[in-house]
């Protein structure tokens, strides 16, 4: 009964950003672009959602940034280690159709979600423009992989260390003024999705964002993930996570992401203290 999910490969692909390939055949079999897993590292662990960023045979790839206790603990694991629980694929797949020209924008660790969407869009007969942005060159991830599945890729950095000096939103505005875009995906931090999606509103271009509220079960049974979309309460884990950007109440989303800030800091502090005392990284609850 105790099924564990083995980590096949684990790599730090940028500062604090990790790529894990996890053996989870039940997830791999049906996973589609836009869906996620919920994982729990061990008996004491929290259930956290991570987007499925690629699939290969029985393996599912997740790319995550070590931002708090759970993601930091996860990053201390390596190939050969195992994760207690992986549930999925969860959420609705991206609405892949033949739109015409699509732009897929990834910001920060959100870039990880873009290749699988771009690939499915291209397969459905769309022209796909990829745009990725990060603070600086060292934080750009999966650039080659995304380039391979896009018709065109634009790279941006906030500090100009690589590609366009500025934000993906600037590229989006430019293209909206010059060409026709038929559908846009924006995936990244909530504030970036809010600002960037504002650009497509006056043009009435269909724009999808992938929302990341705090989740527990990820199966529609608790309402922790509730978001307001078009004035209605939706559960992001089952009604989303992708929604029409122009209908989303981003301020409420950002507010709800901060419910546990104090506890998150306490948890992280304790974890650091623990790992320091036990020596090098990887202190797992036993």
């Amino acid at each position: 009964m105790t099924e564990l999910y083995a980590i096949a490969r684990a790599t730090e692909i940028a500062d604090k950003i990790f790529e894990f390939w996890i053996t989870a055949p039940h997830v791999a079999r049906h996973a589609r672009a836009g869906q996620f897993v919920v994982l729990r590292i061990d008996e004491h662990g929290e259930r956290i959602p991570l987007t499925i960023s690629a699939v290969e045979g029985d393996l599912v790839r997740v790319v995550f940034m070590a931002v708090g206790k759970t993601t930091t603990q996860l990053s201390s694991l390596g190939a050969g280690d195992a994760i207690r629980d992986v549930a999925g694929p969860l959420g609705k797949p991206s609405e892949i159709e033949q739109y015409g020209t699509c732009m897929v924008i990834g910001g920060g660790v959100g870039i990880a979600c873009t290749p699988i969407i771009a690939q499915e869009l291209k397969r459905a007969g769309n022209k796909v423009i990829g745009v990725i942005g990060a603070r600086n060159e060292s934080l750009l991830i999966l650039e080659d992989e995304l380039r391979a599945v896009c018709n065109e890729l634009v790279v941006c950095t906030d500090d100009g260390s690589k590609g366009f000096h500025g934000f993906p939103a600037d590229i989006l505005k430019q293209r909206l003024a010059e060409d026709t875009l038929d559908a846009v995906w924006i995936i990244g931090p909530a504030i970036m999705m809010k600002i960037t999606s504002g650009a497509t509103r006056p043009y009435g271009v269909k724009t999808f964002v992938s929302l990341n509220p705090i989740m527990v079960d990820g199966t529609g049974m608790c309402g922790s993930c509730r978001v307001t979309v078009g004035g209605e309460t939706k559960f992001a884990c089952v009604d989303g996570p992708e929604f029409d950007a122009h209908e989303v109440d981003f301020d409420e989303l950002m507010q709800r992401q901060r419910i546990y800030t104090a506890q998150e800091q306490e948890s992280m502090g304790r974890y650091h203290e623990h790992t320091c005392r036990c020596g090098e990284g990887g202190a797992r609850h036993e």
Partner: protein
Amino acid sequence: MSKRPASERIQDFREVDQGLSAEEAVAEAARCLQCKKPKCVEGCPVTIDIPGFLADVAAGNFREAARTIKQDNMLPAICGRVCPQETQCEGVCILGIKDKPVSIGSLERFVADWEYDHGVELPEVAPSTGKRVAVVGSGPAGLTAAAELARAGHSVTIFESLHEAGGVLTYGIPSFRLPKDVVAREIEQVLALGVDLKLNHLVGRSVSVDELLAFDAVVLGTGAGLPYFMGIEGDNLNGVYSANEYLTRVNLMHADRFPDFDTPVVRASRVAVVGAGNVAMDAARVARRLGARVFLIYRRREEDFPARAAEIENAKEEGIEFLTCANPVRILGGPTVTGIECVRMEMCEPDQSGRPTPRPIEGSTFSLDVDAVIEAIGQGPNPLLIHLIPGLAIGRKGNVEVDGEGKTSLSGVYAAGDVATGAATVIWAMGAAKQAAQRAARAIDRMLEES
């Protein structure tokens, strides 16, 4: 049955009721009049031979008592603890007219716990039929259906989306009413019949509908886990929970032991719980154990509370404050909850069910300072899977439509428990699951005969 004092029990999550000793059990069972036409059996949704097992207990033959109960109920340690006996077997006990009814629930629990301590006898399993049955959900309905079908010799797989089996027994009902080791050991007994349990499998996502329907029979036991919210201003403020979320964080994820366990829950000093059913009582008592002063808000009177009498009593003893004839109109604060605004209600002419209709009294709004709100106003059937199955008839309340024996509109697909009835009880889920499983087994038998 002895209860731990309230002042002690609100300090922890250990069981409140301490159960009967063997001597107490024998004496209590001996009170049974052994009626010729036992009303208690009629009052039991799974028709346990109650006088039979009480006679066994009175004679000190606990092993035989366990056998008698388990002919009709695979999960007696659970039912003995959570069934609403006062409206079922004990409610119709003849002794109850003049005196106290026999404590049938406590005796059922005693027998189940005794059997566990003295070695459990597993029921016989028929030779393998080679037929595959899928059971979706591992709550009381799913577990019962799985046990029934495994005993008939079918190869049964339970799919459960969470990381632990048990459904509401695991994530909903707190351990001070139903210890988790009791749930775990009854689940083990079901698995010992050869049932395969696949956790972390959300059917409809991890398992496609086509894969599901490829089984020789399917039993849906996905429950009523969709929480409703009041839909009033402030519903999405930080610190507003559905009872399901609050209870899941604590019961399944152990947020009461944060930071030893990673899942947090808001540690409020004043909590409002809205609703007055079993779920509301559980949420209120959990909040109390997490150190809060707890107000339970209900729009009708105390005599109208839908919760079990014993749980209302327990909640009261533990210092939960009841605010009756009050209805929330707005949750105050931003971004975090600071209070709840309610309007007083007056009781008017009775509705069809005979209960008076509550009506708001104009100009009577008042507010209460709280830093968390838990909404326990009901749950609907889990919609995800049942809406993905083409042709599955769904009723007005979002429930799967079944005939009297658990058969759905699709051949080979059965449903039982809360997904078919809407939120109900453990024992009704089990009773219906047993029927659905037997109906499925008959259909498979016909398949086997024809081939």
